[in-house]
């Protein structure tokens, strides 16, 4: 059984559906990129899969031993985080909140896990620094480390490279690819950069009104939608 199976999914806000009857599935080890124009419902779909909002129709099934909430999430940056007084360490440790059970404080195991993921992201030297004083790329690494503390099975990322300069963007893509290839973390990522999506991802889900595509990267490149966006527009869509 697949890790996530969405069948006939309809989602949106209040009674307004953004997209209807969407079906796709994600298997363990997949690297799924969700692409599409601004406002096409990518973030809303991700929030629905995460259980942050109820689907208006259809079902989302978790399989392959994946329990609901056993998910790491890298949200689009919110305004609150911009002026929040917190150190890198405090934030990464909060990724372990699901492992605390009924305990009030983090134990040795959680601290070791946080330290390990901080190291993996190359941010150990910054652990005492204030989050709001870091560069955009460093902030994303911190949030990625936090997400990895929550789970090692499945990561959902909402535009992890937006606002980063090209060099840092490339680093971030490499990091994510490593997690997928070497550590076997299943990735679902929202991206604006269709060329990068086609290069790195194993599967593509393209949202955009009537044109919905789901398939592997190869099929996408040869599809009508894929050809139009990838080739004709150079893949750069703001």
């Amino acid at each position, binding site marked *: 059984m697949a890790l996530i199976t969405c069948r006939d999914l309809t989602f949106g806000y209040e009674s307004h559906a953004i997209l209807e009857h969407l079906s796709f599935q994600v298997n363990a080890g997949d690297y799924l990129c969700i692409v599409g124009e601004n406002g096409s419902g990518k973030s809303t779909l991700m929030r629905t899969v995460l259980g942050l909002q109820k689907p208006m129709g259809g079902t989302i099934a978790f399989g392959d031993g994946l329990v609901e909430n056993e998910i790491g999430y890298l949200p689009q940056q919110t305004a609150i985080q911009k002026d*929040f007084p917190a150190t890198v360490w405090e934030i990464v440790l909060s990724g372990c909140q699901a492992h605390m059970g009924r305990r009030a*404080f983090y134990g040795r195991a959680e601290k070791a896990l946080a330290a390990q993921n901080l190291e993996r992201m190359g941010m150990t030297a910054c652990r005492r620094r204030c989050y709001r004083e870091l560069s955009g790329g460093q902030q994303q690494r911190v949030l990625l480390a936090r997400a990895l503390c929550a789970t090692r099975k499945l990561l959902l990322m909402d535009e992890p490279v937006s606002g980063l300069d090209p060099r840092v963007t490339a680093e971030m893509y490499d990091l994510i690819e490593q997690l997928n290839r070497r550590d076997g973390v299943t990735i679902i990522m929202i991206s604006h950069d269709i060329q990068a999506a086609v290069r790195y991802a194993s599967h593509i889900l393209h949202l955009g009104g009537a044109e919905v595509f789901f398939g592997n990267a190869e099929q996408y490149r040869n599809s009508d939608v894929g050809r139009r966006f990838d080739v004709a527009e150079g893949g750069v869509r703001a």
Partner: protein
Amino acid sequence: MIQTISQYFQFPFVRYALVVGTLIALCSSLLGVTLVLKRFSFIGDGLSHVAFGAMAIAGVLRITNDMLFVMPVTILCAVLLLRTGRNAKIKGDAAVAMISVGALAIGYLLLNLFSTSSNLSGDVCSTLFGSTSILTLTQAEVWLCAVLSVLVVALFIFFYNRIFAVTFDEDFARAVGTRVEAYNLLIAVVIAVIIVLAMNLVGSLLISALIIFPALSAMRVFRSFLSVTVCSAALSVACALAGMLIAIVGGTPVGSTIVAVDILVFFVFCGIEQFR
């Protein structure tokens, strides 16, 4: 001056006031950061007005220990406001404004219609600005305040990591299975308790200042959630003590003196930030 102070310490009610005032200041500062950063401050403001209205009703009904009436009413309103705040159809801000201004108006109206006191405006003024109420607490009220303050501090310490998680990133917390609604409810209830407690110290109009200023000052200088929390608690206690002593010696109103000290400290911390 030391002599004057030690003279005042002879009176048990002065000692009670200092102890209770310190405890109230301590717990009111704890949720300041959360309140500021979660944009919950509007709820704090609204609730303080609700507490004023409830106080007026308690006065009309001649309830002797009015905290026992004001507390549940304020907690109930906290829960309601949290609900409407989440509901996109009713504008959260408008709901708060309606409830808080309504409570003020009804409260004053009731006091005017039913009060038997000869000094009505004095009563209203002391409810709004808490002029001396911390010095006039009965023994039972002192105990109630002390027990509730300790409870608030204990709850905060126990749920510290959850409160941090829910304040920093609600969506992430929910995605990994933290019961965010439950903790938001807890935060709202604790805020309601703090507001009713703080009413005794600074009166209902100045409560937001007591809750928010220490947190804002600490956030100017400190960089981690823990240090900001500890610093704002320490600042709040120090300012409350200083304010109460100045008020006792100088005969100034307790609430506004404490808030004035808080404001002074805020500017000092702004200065420190500039020179770093």
